[in-house]
């Protein structure tokens, strides 16, 4: 018993140890929020149960349980490969029976997700009418939770070597934001389709035909039958769920026993595969420019290409214009291609680059992370260092934004404005980078490390004051961009296209001059703030590495 308690304590301790105090407070707030959400879900489900036809409500429960099952099974597979607290190989040293280890790990998983369990419980509890129903739904939810935890652990143990390989982890880091974007796109398209079709069609869906014999379906069967007073059928479904849960736990215990008996065979295999993965990397072609700035730019481009974390941020930086394109594609009437407001929307897309590029440009040393201390050891001028970083970022972002602008031109049929929009984008990027350089020096912050869960990578580490400064910085960039916007839009608004001959070169010149001026200022300040930047972006506690 002491060993099982120790495992539960270990999980809880490691979960808290990873988090800074303010994150713990945030987690408490999230937990409370989840409790309120669970209560809300309970009432919504009661209303749903009372308000909808019983067949439709049962279908909704089937879908809900299937989604819970999918999420609870798959998400730990993704997050677990980044999480030392779930690393079974660390426990193999201890004299622990497979049964105890299985039980300990199961309990650890359950206690580390109390909010999720509450939500899970609330869904079937929404169907409760009588005390007997509560007993059955509670038992069904508990068995379902045990089954899901055991299943995800079994999968994690079985796929250990695959999940722990660097390539899988890189892929998972990259997949997380891509999935988010995909969900957003599918959601947008689905709403668009739903608004065009007959909503009554949704009432005729029969998900239970496909889902009733899945684990979630067993829960739904037990709960809906109990609610309808058919306790025999309900207990029958519950018995099936009990058998399934017991089988899953037994399978997990078997896998744990095999890992123990094979002296961490899976771990050894992972190491072996890791060694096999160490293949040679193709040397890049020669970089066309020479000099210190070019050397930094080349290094940045290599890292953008090879580091999945950086790719994630580049993708996020491209999300804003991408969403803009999606919005334009889905919601603008095709019948009015020449409407003047569409030209304005098209040119405004350039302004979105200010948003997007800020994600990357305003914390340029954060991406170096621990290696910032190495970068600052090199005796190159800080102007060249910043220039190199800016060249790389400008190139990468223009590489993303340019095709989007072409796509947007095709959607809005504003081909004539495409060169203007590209010019606007390139110049806006320069202004964004010029403010971003200063923010990188004065508000640097540590980014999540490579070991962290990719699903938790969206949060910045800059704190409230830093976040406010970022907003102020973005506003400053937006204000700096006003002359640019005027130079690009006024000739069109006043129907004086000939003015572009003067306003365009002036706009580009203005952006370039602003960038160069602020770059000089930033380079001078950087030289004096390097220790503070290292302290901010490096590993936590590095300053105390005595």
């Amino acid at each position, binding site marked *: 018993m002491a060993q099982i308690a120790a495992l539960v304590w270990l999980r809880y301790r490691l979960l808290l140890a990873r988090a800074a105090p303010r994150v713990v407070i945030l987690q408490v707030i999230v937990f409370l929020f989840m409790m309120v959400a669970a209560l809300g879900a309970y009432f919504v489900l009661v209303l749903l149960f009372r308000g909808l036809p019983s067949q439709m409500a049962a279908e909704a429960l089937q879908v809900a349980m299937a989604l819970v099952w999918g999420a609870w099974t798959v998400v730990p597979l993704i997050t677990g490969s980044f999480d030392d607290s779930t690393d079974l190989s660390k426990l193999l040293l201890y004299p622990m029976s497979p049964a105890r280890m299985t039980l300990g790990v199961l309990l650890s998983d359950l206690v580390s997700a109390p909010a999720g369990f509450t939500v899970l419980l609330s869904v079937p509890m929404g169907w409760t009418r009588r005390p007997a129903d509560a007993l059955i739904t509670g038992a069904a939810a508990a068995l379902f939770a045990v089954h899901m935890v055991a299943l995800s652990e079994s999968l994690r143990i079985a796929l250990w070597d695959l999940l722990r390989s660097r390539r899988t982890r890189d892929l998972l880091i990259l997949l997380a934001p891509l999935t988010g974007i995909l969900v957003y796109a599918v959601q947008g398209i689905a709403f668009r389709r739903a608004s065009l079709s007959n909503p009554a069609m949704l009432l005729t869906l029969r998900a239970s035909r496909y889902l009733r014999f899945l684990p979630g379906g067993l829960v739904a069967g037990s709960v809906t039958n109990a609610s309808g007073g058919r306790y025999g059928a309900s207990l029958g479904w519950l018995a099936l769920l009990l058998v399934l849960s017991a089988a899953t736990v037994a399978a997990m215990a078997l896998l744990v026993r095999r890992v123990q008996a094979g002296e961490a065979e899976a771990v050894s295999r992972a190491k072996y595969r890791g060694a096999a993965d160490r293949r040679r990397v193709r*040397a890049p072609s020669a970089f066309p420019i020479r000099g210190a700035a070019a050397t930094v730019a080349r290094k940045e481009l*290599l890292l953008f290409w090879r580091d999945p974390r950086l790719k994630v941020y580049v993708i996020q930086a491209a999300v804003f214009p991408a969403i803009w394109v999606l919005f334009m594609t889905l919601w603008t009437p095709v019948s009015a291609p020449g409407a003047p407001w569409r030209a304005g929307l098209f040119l405004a897309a350039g302004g979105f680059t200010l948003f997007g590029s800020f994600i990357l440009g305003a914390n340029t040393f954060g991406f170096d992370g621990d290696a*910032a201390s190495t970068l*600052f050891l*090199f005796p190159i001028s800080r102007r060249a260092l910043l220039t190199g970083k800016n060249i790389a970022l400008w190139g990468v972002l223009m590489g993303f934004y340019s095709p989007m602008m072409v796509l947007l031109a095709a959607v809005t049929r504003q081909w004539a404005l495409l060169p203007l929009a590209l010019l606007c984008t390139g110049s806006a990027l320069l202004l964004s980078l010029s403010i971003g350089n200063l923010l990188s020096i004065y508000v640097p912050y540590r980014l999540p490390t490579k070991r962290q869960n990719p699903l938790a990578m969206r949060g910045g580490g800059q704190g409230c004051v830093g976040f406010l400064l970022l907003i102020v910085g973005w506003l400053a960039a937006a204000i700096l961009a006003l002359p640019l916007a005027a130079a690009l839009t006024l000739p069109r608004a006043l129907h004086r296209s000939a003015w572009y001959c003067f306003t365009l070169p002036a706009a580009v010149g203005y952006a370039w001059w602003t960038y160069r001026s602020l770059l000089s200022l930033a380079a001078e300040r950087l*030289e004096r703030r390097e220790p503070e930047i290292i302290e901010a972006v490096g590993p936590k506690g590095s300053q105390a*590495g005595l």
Partner: protein
Amino acid sequence: MTTQPKPVVAEGLTKVFDGNVAVNALDLVVDRGEFFGFLGPNGAGKTTSIRMMVGLLRPTSGSVWICGYDVLDQPIEVKRRIGVLPEELNLYERLTGSEYLSFSARMYGLAPTEADKRIEELLDLMGLREDQDKLIVEYSHGMQKKVALAAALLHDPEVLFLDEPFSGIDAISGRAIRDVLRLMTQRGRTIVFCSHVLEVVEHLCTRVAILHQGNLVGIGDLATLRQKSHTEGSLEDVFLALVGAKTDAEGLSWLR
């Protein structure tokens, strides 16, 4: 004839973290061609001192001059003259070993042909030739240390700061690196060296500074330190005497 400035001069170097004094008013002068050892128990302030000396950590008070240049006021001039192997390696893990060295060579302004020649020789010396085209993230800790050390040696720095250079390094490479470091000091280069392995320090260093709880408790060659500690033994005996350490294995009741 003009006298050359001392390679390393620290005056009143102090660092306070949240009220805890990590390094307390450290005064230090290291001469040209010296192999200078920095010793101390865990948490003594060795790494903090080195980080301040190379400009990676701002001191709470005090100053450091490297080859006559103030570390805080003339950081670029200082960094041109130093090579650093930090305790935390902090490499760009998504570059290959040879790419990282090539990047470092360019950053130190080495001519391409000279850089290529030096990189080839360093890869051979470190035994990294076979793995030069693999990503650093795939390297073992020892291999990563070798790459970092190679990068620190690449531009033939006037002062070399090495924090635990031999931990994780195999015996063959360790011997080769020791020979290179000796050769460097013979050519007038200065090495500031930090290690827990006292035998290595005793074997290599001409002078040693011993830090304890942020304070300099002894500095000089072995004879001077013996005199100060009133001990006639190895560097380990001197070290233990100066930091006042107790090594009472009998204190473990269940082993008695």
